[in-house]
């Protein structure tokens, strides 16, 4: 217990980084995933194939590889840089990798939502003269989103837990790294582990609860 109290400030700072990463990646992956799914169902075969290829490759690649590649490959070898400050650069490399990875799952989730929208909706949208992108934006996607709020919550929860893998991209600030660092110093400490697990639960459980509630409140009545 003393270990937990002694290292609490470090651990809290690390955990705050996880929260920051989660917030930024949630926004970016939702946007990128929506763009991806729009391309995935677009009337142009080239766009459909491109989006499907991206989704299938990325979702079958381990996140650890994606993150290690974004640091060692994209940044170190190919010279991609977000900032001169190494830790800021590493932060954005994690954001890039984690968002790119999560976006493919957001897109797949949304596509299963699109599959629940009834045929009549798409037909009616066409009948009143909406173009493809208008019907997607005004008719299909809003209903698809409302149908997949709960599964999307699961994807976001997984993404929040995945922020711990940031260490693979050489970003040494978030709580998994701090925990390892502390264990290196003091040996294993059960209170520290439990404290961190509870901190993660304090975020993931409300997300699950809220998305579950929202999905019931916003369910499309058919």
């Amino acid at each position: 217990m003393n270990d937990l109290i002694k290292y609490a400030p470090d651990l809290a700072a690390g955990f705050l980084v996880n929260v920051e990463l989660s917030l930024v990646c949630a926004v970016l992956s939702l946007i990128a995933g929506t763009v991806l799914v729009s391309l995935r169902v677009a009337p142009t075969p080239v766009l459909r194939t491109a989006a499907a290829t991206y989704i299938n490759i990325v979702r079958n690649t381990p996140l650890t590889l994606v993150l290690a590649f974004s640091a060692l490959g994209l940044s170190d070898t190919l010279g991609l840089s977000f900032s001169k400050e190494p830790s800021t650069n590493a932060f954005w490399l994690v954001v890039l990798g984690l968002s790119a990875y999560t976006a493919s799952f957001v897109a797949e989730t949304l596509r299963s939502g699109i599959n629940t929208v009834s045929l009549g909706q798409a037909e009616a949208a066409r009948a009143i003269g909406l173009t493809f992108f208008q019907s997607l934006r005004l008719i299909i996607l809003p209903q698809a989103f409302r149908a997949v709020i709960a599964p999307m919550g699961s994807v976001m929860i997984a993404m929040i837990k995945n922020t711990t893998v940031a260490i693979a991209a050489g970003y040494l600030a978030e709580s998994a790294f701090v925990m390892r660092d502390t264990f290196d110093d003091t040996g294993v400490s059960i209170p520290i582990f439990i404290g961190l697990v509870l901190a993660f639960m304090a975020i993931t459980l409300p997300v699950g609860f809220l998305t579950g509630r929202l999905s019931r409140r916003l369910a499309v009545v058919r």
Partner: protein
Amino acid sequence: MSGPVTTSVLFDAPGPRARLRNNALTLLALIGIAAIAYLVYLRFDEKHQWEGRIWEPFTESATWTGYIIPGLLGTLKAAGLSAVFALVFGSVFGLARLSDHRWIRVSAGAVVEVFRSIPLLLLIFFLFFLAPSVFGGGDYTLIALVAGLTLYNGSVLAEVVRAGVLAVPKGQSEAAYAIGFRKNQVMRLVLLPQAVTAMMPAIVSQLVVLLKDTALGYIIAYVDLLNYGFRVLPARFFGSLIPAAIVIGVIYVGLNMTLSALATWLERRSRRSRRTSVKPIPATADIGE
């Protein structure tokens, strides 16, 4: 008018104007993709990534037998062991959650829910540092990885098992009790055989997640495919990081796509199957890491 939308009916059979617009879009998309490819090419060129020297090692069999295949075997060993243990863990806890005894049900439920919500890497780190202080010194990378993967994926599979058994129509167990079966006979002879067929696709999908998760071993320096590709190979053949990443990426994606295809095939087969009264249960929303 309430069938689900398939992608083909989101848009009409195109008329002349729509066809023109689609062709324009196709052209733009192709130009965009070509532009991206060209920029990547230029960047590779600028950083000397096209030099034959760094690609050459991958045409030699010694690279494969000495580095890539041992790495792949390390990954498969971790995945295989964890899969077996996770299936055992999942069956035990999944069935325990269906127990008639409240204390078994509740405690099994608590274990499953807790391990499902712990970030997997934290769990692996914890086990990795816990093992030496309990069992003394040694190499615990494989043990920590397998134990972490087992506890996490086993808990997810426990939910699959529970959902599978619950999805068998009530009439099946009622009929079994009516002809005088005992509790464990009902489970063993009636519910499980039907549930297993329905669970298979979800189980195989979870195995894809498990296989991807073995890459976490890289972080605790377990000698797996990722470790060979990102640490050993670039150190041995200086500058070969990108080719190595591409090779091991292709291996990971190939393995996972094969498993995913198996899951899809199983799902289609179990949908047609007359040996079970249960529709295949949906895969977990797990995205892996």
